[in-house]
C-alpha cells in the first residue's frame, strides 16, 4: 500500500530524519561545547614566566576554556578536521609567540580559523571570550613586569629589557646625589621634579590595574527566579501548549465536519466558507485562552507562594492573555487549513500532531545555528508567539516587540484564514 503512495512513503522516511536533525540542532546547540583545535607552532613549554609570574599553560587553558573543548592537534590535523567539520575552529599559536609574550612589551598574536557553518559566529564569540580570559590571567604578569620597571625607576638597580642589561640610578639615589650638590635654583628645580616624579610613579600600580580593568563587574547574589520559573520557560510552555491544542482542535473539528457530513448542511446557505473557518479560529482562540490563563495562573501562584522576586506575575496578565488569544486564533486558522486539506478527522489529527513537532523545533533553533530554519520559522506562528509572550511577561518596555510579533501573527493568521477558506471549498465536494 505504501508503494502505491510515494508521497506518504517519502513523508514517513523524511519525517523522523527531519525531527532528528532539528532535535540534534537544538540539543547540540544548547548543551554541547564545540570542539576547537589548539595548534601549538611555537612549542610552548609546560610552564612560562611572564613578569616574574609563572603560568602552567595547560592549567591556564583548562581554567579559561569552559565554553569550548580545546583539542591539541598539529597544523595538518587541525586543517583536515576543520574541513571535515570535526572541529568548528582552530586556534594557532604561531612561532615567536612566547618570545613576544615574555618581553611584556609586544602583544603576541594567536590565529583563529572558523568553518563556514552556522555555528561560526558563536564559536568566534566563544574564542574571543577564551582570549579575554587568557588576557585576564596574563595581565597580572604584565602589570608586575611594568611595576618592576617602575620600581627600578624609583629605587634604582639592575634591569633587563628586550635582552639588554642595564643599571638604573633611580629617583631615590638621584635625590641623594642632588643633596650633595651646591644649592642652586637649577638643583632645586631638579629636586622638585624628582619629588613630583616619585609621587606620580607611586600611583602607577593602581593606574595600571585600573587601565587593565576600567570597569569591574561584581556579581551580587539575588533571589530572582530560577530558570524553571523564568519568563522564557513560561513563554515556551504556553506557546507549546497553545500550538499543540489549537492546531489539533481546529484541524480535527474542520475535518470532522466533513466526516460527519454536516459541512454539506452548513454550506446550504446556513454558513459561509469564511464563517466556517472563523468558527474554528474562535474555538481555538477560546480554548487557547483558557489554557494559557491556567498556565499563567499556576506560574503566578508558584511565584507568589515561593516569595520569588523579579517580574510581575499578575500585572502583565492582560497583555499576555491578549497574545495567547491572538496566537491560539492564528494557530487555529492554520489548523483549519490543515483540516480542510485532510480527507478525514483521524488523518487531520495525525497530521496536526506530526506537524507540531517540527513547527516547535524550528522555532527553537537559534538564528545563528541554521539560518534557513530561522527564516522558515518566521512564517510559522510558534516563534512569534514565544517572543510575544516573553516580551509581554517581563520586558520593561514590551510594546515594540509585542507590536512587531503581533503584526507577524496577524499576517500569518490572515494568510492561513484565506487559504483555509479556499481549502474549505473542497470539504463538501
Amino acid at each position, binding site marked *: 500500500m505504501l508503494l502505491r503512495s510515494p508521497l506518504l512513503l517519502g513523508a514517513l522516511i523524511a519525517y523522523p530524519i527531519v525531527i532528528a536533525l532539528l532535535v540534534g540542532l537544538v540539543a547540540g546547540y544548547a548543551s554541547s561545547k564545540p570542539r576547537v583545535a589548539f595548534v601549538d607552532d611555537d612549542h610552548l613549554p609546560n610552564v612560562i614566566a611572564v613578569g616574574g609570574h609563572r603560568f602552567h599553560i595547560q592549567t591556564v587553558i583548562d581554567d579559561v576554556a569552559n565554553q569550548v573543548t580545546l583539542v591539541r592537534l598539529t597544523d595538518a590535523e587541525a586543517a583536515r578536521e576543520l574541513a571535515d567539520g570535526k572541529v568548528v575552529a582552530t586556534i594557532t599559536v604561531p612561532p615567536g609567540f612566547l618570545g613576544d609574550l615574555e618581553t611584556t612589551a609586544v602583544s603576541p598574536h594567536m590565529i583563529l580559523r572558523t568553518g563556514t557553518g552556522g555555528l561560526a559566529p558563536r564559536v568566534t564569540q566563544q574564542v574571543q571570550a577564551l582570549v579575554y580570559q587568557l588576557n585576564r590571567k596574563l595581565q597580572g604578569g604584565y602589570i608586575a613586569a611594568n611595576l618592576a620597571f617602575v620600581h627600578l625607576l624609583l629605587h634604582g638597580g639592575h634591569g633587563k629589557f628586550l635582552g639588554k642589561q642595564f643599571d638604573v640610578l633611580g629617583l631615590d639615589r638621584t635625590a641623594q646625589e642632588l643633596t650633595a650638590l651646591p644649592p642652586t635654583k637649577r638643583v632645586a628645580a631638579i629636586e622638585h621634579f624628582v619629588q613630583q616624579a616619585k609621587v606620580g610613579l607611586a600611583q602607577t600600580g593602581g593606574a595600571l590595574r585600573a587601565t587593565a580593568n576600567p570597569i569591574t563587574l561584581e556579581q551580587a547574589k539575588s533571589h530572582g527566579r530560577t530558570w524553571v520559573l523564568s519568563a522564557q520557560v513560561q513563554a515556551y510552555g504556553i506557546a507549546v501548549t497553545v500550538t499543540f491544542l489549537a492546531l489539533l482542535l481546529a484541524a480535527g473539528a474542520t475535518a470532522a465536519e466533513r466526516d460527519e457530513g*454536516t459541512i*454539506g*448542511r452548513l*454550506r446550504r446557505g*446556513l454558513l459561509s466558507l469564511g464563517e466556517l473557518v472563523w468558527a474554528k479560529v474562535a474555538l481555538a482562540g477560546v480554548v487557547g485562552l483558557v489554557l494559557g490563563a491556567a498556565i499563567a495562573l499556576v506560574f503566578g501562584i508558584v511565584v507568589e507562594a515561593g516569595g520569588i522576586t523579579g517580574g510581575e506575575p499578575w500585572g502583565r496578565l492582560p497583555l499576555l492573555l491578549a497574545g495567547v488569544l491572538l496566537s491560539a486564533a492564528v494557530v487555529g486558522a492554520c489548523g483549519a487549513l490543515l483540516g480542510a486539506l485532510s480527507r478525514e478527522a483521524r488523518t487531520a489529527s495525525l497530521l496536526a500532531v506530526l506537524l507540531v513537532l517540527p513547527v516547535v523545533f524550528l522555532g527553537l533553533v537559534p538564528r545563528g545555528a541554521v539560518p534557513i530554519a530561522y527564516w522558515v520559522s518566521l512564517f510559522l506562528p510558534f516563534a512569534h508567539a514565544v517572543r510575544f509572550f516573553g516580551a509581554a511577561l517581563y520586558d520593561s518596555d514590551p510594546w515594540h516587540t509585542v507590536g512587531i510579533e503581533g503584526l507577524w501573527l496577524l499576517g500569518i493568521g490572515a494568510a492561513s484564514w484565506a487559504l483555509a477558506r479556499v481549502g474549505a471549498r473542497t470539504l*463538501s465536494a
Partner: protein
Amino acid sequence: MTSPLVRALRVARRYGEVEALAPTDVELHSGETVALVGPNGAGKSTLLAILAGAIEPSEGTVETNARVGWVPQRPAHYSRLSARENLELFAQLEGVRDARAAAAELLERFALPPAPRPSGELSVGNRQRLNVAIALLGEPRVLLLDEPTAALDPGQRRRVWEVADALRAGGGAVCFATQNLEEIEHANRTIVLQDGQVASLTVEEVFR
C-alpha cells in the same frame, strides 16, 4: 404554468477528469414527487446535493423559489451532540424562531430518543430518522431525499413517505433518489440517470 419551486439549468459536476454529472436540466413544481432512478454512480446523489446547494455545480445554475430541506444519503449530524442538541443547533442556523419547540416537536414526531445521548451512539435507523428530521426544520416546501429509507424498517419507511406525501399535498415538491423500484410508485414523475446523464431509457431497461 406556475414557475417551478426549483429549477436547475445545465448543471454539471466534474471532479478533475471525472464527470460525475453531465449538464442536466431539472425542474420541481408544486404538488409533484419526482423519483431519480439509476444504478450506483449514476449521478443521483450529486444532482440532489447540487439542487440542495450542498455542493457547487462546475457549471450551470440553480434557481430556488422555496425553502429546501435535504436528506443526504449518509446521516449528517454532529455525532457528539444528542438528537435534541442537533435539532436545536440546526434550527437556530435555519433561523427558526423557537428552536427548542421545533426540536421538541420533531423529536416526538420521529420518535427520537430525548435522552442526552450522543447521536453517534444511536442505532442506524434512529440516525436516519434524525437525518430526515433535521431536513424538516424551517418547514421546507421542497424536500430532497437521497435514498431516505435505505436503513429503515417498514414502519419507519411508511412514516417517511407519510411526511413526503403530506408535504406534496400541501403544495410542496419532493424529489428522491432510489434504487428500490417499489418506491417509484410514490412518484408522479421519474428521471432515469445513467453514467451521469439523463437517459432516455425505462427503469426496467436501466436495471436489466
